[in-house]
């Protein structure tokens, strides 16, 4: 499976590319919309600030990804890449997300717990999830973030930190994970394999 990994200069892609290759993907890293137009499946990584997604708009990547998703190309957003699938985030209120999911992301509620949420936390998995197929209930994955998406009908897994939030989201061929599958040991690698398998089915 050929995976188009989007580089929008938000952090480091090395780990994501390395783990996709480890599970058998052929990766092409691109900064431009032309490559996205011929993508078989797309991974949008991302660490850091939601404002960094502005670059997707400015380079024409947003339009290219929107068109690819409309064509049925499987898509996986990781961390900020997942948050970008929503309409926006209070982290950068003036910056719109893709709006594939209508809700918006917000900062964890301030209280006694530390923000960011950093470390391994457990997944309460929606049994209907295709992305998380075969992942054991309660499996731990690695998170590092201060903003989170709300739990809705599209939520594939819920995690609790301060409050319940969407650890994974999916609808049709569009998937997002708030955690880092590339840093989540065997569980994370299995989720990436699942995405590749789902993508291979979509190509057939």
């Amino acid at each position, binding site marked *: 499976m050929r995976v188009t990994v989007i580089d929008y200069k*938000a*952090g*480091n892609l*090395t*780990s994501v590319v*390395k*783990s996709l290759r*480890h599970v058998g993907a052929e990766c092409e890293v691109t900064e431009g919309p032309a490559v996205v137009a011929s993508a078989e499946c797309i991974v949008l990584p991302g*660490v*850091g*600030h939601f404002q960094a997604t502005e670059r997707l708009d400015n380079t024409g990547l947003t339009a290219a990804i929107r068109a690819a998703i409309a064509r049925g190309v499987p898509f996986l957003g990781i961390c900020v890449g997942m948050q970008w699938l929503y309409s926006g985030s209070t982290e950068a209120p003036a910056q719109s997300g893709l709006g594939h999911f209508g809700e918006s992301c917000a900062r964890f509620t301030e209280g006694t717990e*530390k*923000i*960011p*949420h*950093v*470390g*391994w*936390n*457990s997944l309460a998995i929606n049994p209907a999830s295709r992305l998380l197929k075969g992942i054991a209930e309660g499996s*731990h994955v*690695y998170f*590092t*973030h201060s903003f989170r998406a709300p739990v809705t009908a599209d939520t594939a897994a819920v995690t*609790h*930190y301060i409050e319940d939030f969407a650890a994974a989201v999916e609808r049709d061929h569009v998937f997002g994970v708030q955690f*880092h599958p*590339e*840093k*989540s*040991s*065997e569980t*994370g*690698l299995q989720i990436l394999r699942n995405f590749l398998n789902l993508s291979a089915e979509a190509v057939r």
Partner: protein
Amino acid sequence: MITKRIIACLDVRDGRVVKGVQFVDIVDAGDPAAQAARHARNGADEIVLLDITATHEGRATLLDTVRRTAQELFVPFTVGGGIRTAEDAAQVFEAGADKVSVNSAALKNPQLIDDIGRSFGAQAVVVAIDARRDPEAADPVKQAQVYVQGGRKLTGRRVVEWAREAEQRGAGEILLTSMNTDGMRTGFDCELTAAVSEAVGIPVIASGGAGTVEHFVDVFGRGKADAALAASIFHFGISSARSLKEELARAGVSVRLPC
């Protein structure tokens, strides 16, 4: 529920794992890539590689070591030691690290924290602090002092105040090593760890002094640590992260048990 992290630390010199007792006696403990993979397999939540090579030639060796270590590692991987500029950090990220740990260079030039954070995100910046209690101060814990050069040189900074500044500048985590307890296997400095953890809103990794399971229970409880670093406890087959975590779980500490 968020779990307490057990972090395996590899002190590396000239491409080999070594572990010093109070930063002086150094014993060879193997190949970093093999050690890191073994710790991850055994359930370590994270790997930290601290390069203690002092020489310029060591830099190239380090990048090669980082590349080899990162290749088969699918848990968070932090690299520290000798990172003096944002460019040094960029090379280490390029070689496969997820986070860098900065220590003396950040004390010399605190702007380094802002610079790395801006390019790679706050989650990628760990500020390491080597701390020693100040026996002459009215409050030896709250007024603990920051040291550099392996605990030999006093900086004139207070630990709690420096941790707060690091957070404000965009550090994602604090790695706090107690020079009083490091390598002694007599337990973490829980009072000092708690003082720092209460002063900042970012995770604090406790380091220095791990010897028994009880020491970890203590630092996660009384010490309010979010993670704990272990080095000597894991070397030479003394204990694995797996057995440590099984015992921690029995003691009521929330941990990720490996499959």
